[in-house]
């Protein structure tokens, strides 16, 4: 990867570190951490494994090993350890990632003008809340990575027979017609050798700027070659006798010409429909073979091969003289190709249109869910289908928004200390932790109260900032107006400076910048919008005569993920995690998940209900009514 990170998590490593590590260790006062123990001091050394090497891999291996231990330790120490590791990892990466990050700092500049600008400007701010927020994000990220590392191990074990890494290397040898529905999945080991935010971001950037993978185009290229070969075969059948033994051919005038015409038109139809249906850039690479497409290619290959075989043996060999028969033979090949194309149309395009299953897609981090209807698809095709719609329907994943602030949750665990008086503590470790949890549950705590008030406070703050932002934007928009052509000539007395949209945007951006920055910080969206992107959006809105409200809709509601994507041709990396082989079809009760680096989408399949529609005939004359009476008669 080109980023070398070293430096351990202990204090004595101050000598060999890049510049950012030592100042932070020496002056913890600059960054008042909410962590109970300053990360530089070797607190609770008994938790660290006795490995003395300070390399990152070892520390990570230790982290994984520790988490695999039975719960002999209280949860508090686990979370504390994670904090320390996260904090240590963050500083390590800050040192190591800084080198790679400064190179790409200008494009990702966000609205932070509190600190001096560096590659990780949001990290070096001095406010306590943002530091706490960063730690929260950090912990969240490391925790999610732990779970996914565990999950990833289970994937490689459970995929039937073929671990993902082997697919690229061994498949090519087995079959002739293996053209590259090979996996492009990055397996777990390379993905999880990083443990911190900066390096994650570096990885994401690098992955998006890797050179174009050739494997993506092997499949379509092979298909293209095959179809080209199939298309020129009839022409070859016709031309070869003419070229080779023209003199001995029986001449056939009218019937052959009729056949020529029909052949030409059928070939034209084949060409046009192939172009319309199949000549499209592929939108996804699947981890396994796309079964129908492979089937069709094999079929085409077999057809053409057998036709050539027959032709070679029966026509080219004995130099057949009946030219009309040859032309009819070529015409029959074109008919067969047309039928195969009909089959391809039905299998690839039409079959999955009729809905048969209902998919529930839930995002694992914040529970955003949607329901979709699909037809009969294989698991991998259904995954691609779901991801297509994910980018449009789901609001963007914001790692900064967590469920409960840790300050509320952690209060439950800090009140208890469990001392065991036995010699062997490993036996009742689970019993100990269970007792602690039960005791904590029985205790009366007011964390729901705090959560409620904190939510209300946060909402109030957001509304306040939003009001300020809306007012600022409205005022800013009143400063400019569009200049019509006749106005320019009609007012020579007041020469106003004429600006193009970019300059106009820059002119009115200044008064609203502060309000915008504060609002984005409060709603934790500042990572998604850089100053440059806001200016570009402002320019866009001015050009199209949009009102301030239209300008703000992009920032007031988190839009779909598609809105935040940069246009890159490299694509997004998703991992399909499934217990069934991914080429099997959807059926009831199937669950698979699509994993990205820090979140995953869990998909559940249920079949659509069978509808029994009955009929009831109502005679239009049968609609009769009576009044509800309560009459009174005097007698």
């Amino acid at each position: 990867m080109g980023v070398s990170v070293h430096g351990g998590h202990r204090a004595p490593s101050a000598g060999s570190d890049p510049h950012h590590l030592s100042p932070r260790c020496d002056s913890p006062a600059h960054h008042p951490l909410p962590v109970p123990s300053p990360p530089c001091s070797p607190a609770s050394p008994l938790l660290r494994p006795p490995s003395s090497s300070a390399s990152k891999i070892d520390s990570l291996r230790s982290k994984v090993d520790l988490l695999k231990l039975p719960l002999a330790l209280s949860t508090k120490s686990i979370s504390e350890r994670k904090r320390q590791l996260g904090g240590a990892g963050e500083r390590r990466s800050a040192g190591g990632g800084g080198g790679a990050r400064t190179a790409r700092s200008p494009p990702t500049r966000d609205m932070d003008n509190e600190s001096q600008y560096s590659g990780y400007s949001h990290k070096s701010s001095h406010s306590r809340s943002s530091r706490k927020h960063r730690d929260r994000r950090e912990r969240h990220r490391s925790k999610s990575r732990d779970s996914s590392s565990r999950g990833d191990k289970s994937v490689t074990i459970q995929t039937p027979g073929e671990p993902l890494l082997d697919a690229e290397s061994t498949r090519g040898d087995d079959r002739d017609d293996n053209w590259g529905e090979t996996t492009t999945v990055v397996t777990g080991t390379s993905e999880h050798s990083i443990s911190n935010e900066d390096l994650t971001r570096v990885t994401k950037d690098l992955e998006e700027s890797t050179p174009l993978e050739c494997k993506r185009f092997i499949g379509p290229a092979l298909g293209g070659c095959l179809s080209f070969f199939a298309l020129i075969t009839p022409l070859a059948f016709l031309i070869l006798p003419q070229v080779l033994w023209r003199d001995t051919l029986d001449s056939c005038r009218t019937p052959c010409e009729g056949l020529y015409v029909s052949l030409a038109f059928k070939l034209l139809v084949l060409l046009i429909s192939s172009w319309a249906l199949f000549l499209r850039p592929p939108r996804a690479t699947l981890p396994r073979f796309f079964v129908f497409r492979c089937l069709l290619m094999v079929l085409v290959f077999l057809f053409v091969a057998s036709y050539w075989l027959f032709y070679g043996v029966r026509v080219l060999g004995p130099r057949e003289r009946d030219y009309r028969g040859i032309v009819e033979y070529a015409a029959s090949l074109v008919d067969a190709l047309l039928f195969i194309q009909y089959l391809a149309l039905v299998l690839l395009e039409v079959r999955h249109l009729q809905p048969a299953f209902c998919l529930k897609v839930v995002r694992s981090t914040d529970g955003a869910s949607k329901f979709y209807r699909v037809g009969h698809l294989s698991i991998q095709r259904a995954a691609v289908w779901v991801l297509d719609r994910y980018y449009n329907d789901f609001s963007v994943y914001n790692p900064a928004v967590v469920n409960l602030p840790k300050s509320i949750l952690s209060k439950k665990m800090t009140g208890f200390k469990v001392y065991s008086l036995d010699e062997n503590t490993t036996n009742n470790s689970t019993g100990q932790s269970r007792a602690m949890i039960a005791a904590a549950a029985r205790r009366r705590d007011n964390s729901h109260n705090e959560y409620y008030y904190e939510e209300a406070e946060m909402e109030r703050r957001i509304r306040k900032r939003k009001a300020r932002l809306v007012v600022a934007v409205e005022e800013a928009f009143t400063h400019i107006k569009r200049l019509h052509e006749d106005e320019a000539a009609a007012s020579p007395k007041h020469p106003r400076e004429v600006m193009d949209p970019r300059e106009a945007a820059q002119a009115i951006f200044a008064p609203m910048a502060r309000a915008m920055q504060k609002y984005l910080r409060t709603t934790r969206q500042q990572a998604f919008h850089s100053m440059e992107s806001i200016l570009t959006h402002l320019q866009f809105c001015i050009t199209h005569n949009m009102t301030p409200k239209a300008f703000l809709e992009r920032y007031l509601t988190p839009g779909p993920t598609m809105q935040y994507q940069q246009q890159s041709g490299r694509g997004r990396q998703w991992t399909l995690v499934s217990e069934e082989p991914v080429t099997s079809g959807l059926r009831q009760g199937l669950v698979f998940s699509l994993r990205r680096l820090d979140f995953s989408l869990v998909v559940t399949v249920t079949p659509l209900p069978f509808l029994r529609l009955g009929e009831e005939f109502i005679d239009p004359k049968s609609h009769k009514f009576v009044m509800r009476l309560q009459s009174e008669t005097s007698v």
Partner: protein
Amino acid sequence: MSFVPGQPVTAVVQRVEIQKLCQGENLILGFSIGGGIDQDPGQNPFSEDKSDKGIYVTRITPGGPAESAGLKMGDKIMQVNGWDMTMVTHDQARKKLTKKREDVVRLLITRKSLEEAVKHSKGSHPSHLPAQTNARTTKDRVVL
């Protein structure tokens, strides 16, 4: 006063005899009835059980023969001259009451206060005979 359809009804009734008054060419009794099996029982203000479709006295003209006979508003009419009034339509009830050939109608009516009076009298004086009123009414327990 609620009952289960198809089961025998037990009620404390009072016999009321009303002489019809000749007014012009009509014979009137001086009260109005409401209810019936073709009517909406939920709108009956006098019934305790709102599914009771019996015939109820809804209005008494002051000074009429019904008032002097002792009929009260809210009474449920159980029988008219022997004809049952618990399962009749409104029109049938009207017809039974307004037969031109009869100038006397003998009604069996029931009301809530009768039950309580009987209970009270039974409870306090088990051997006490029911009292005779001015309007020649007797209190009887009737099984219909």
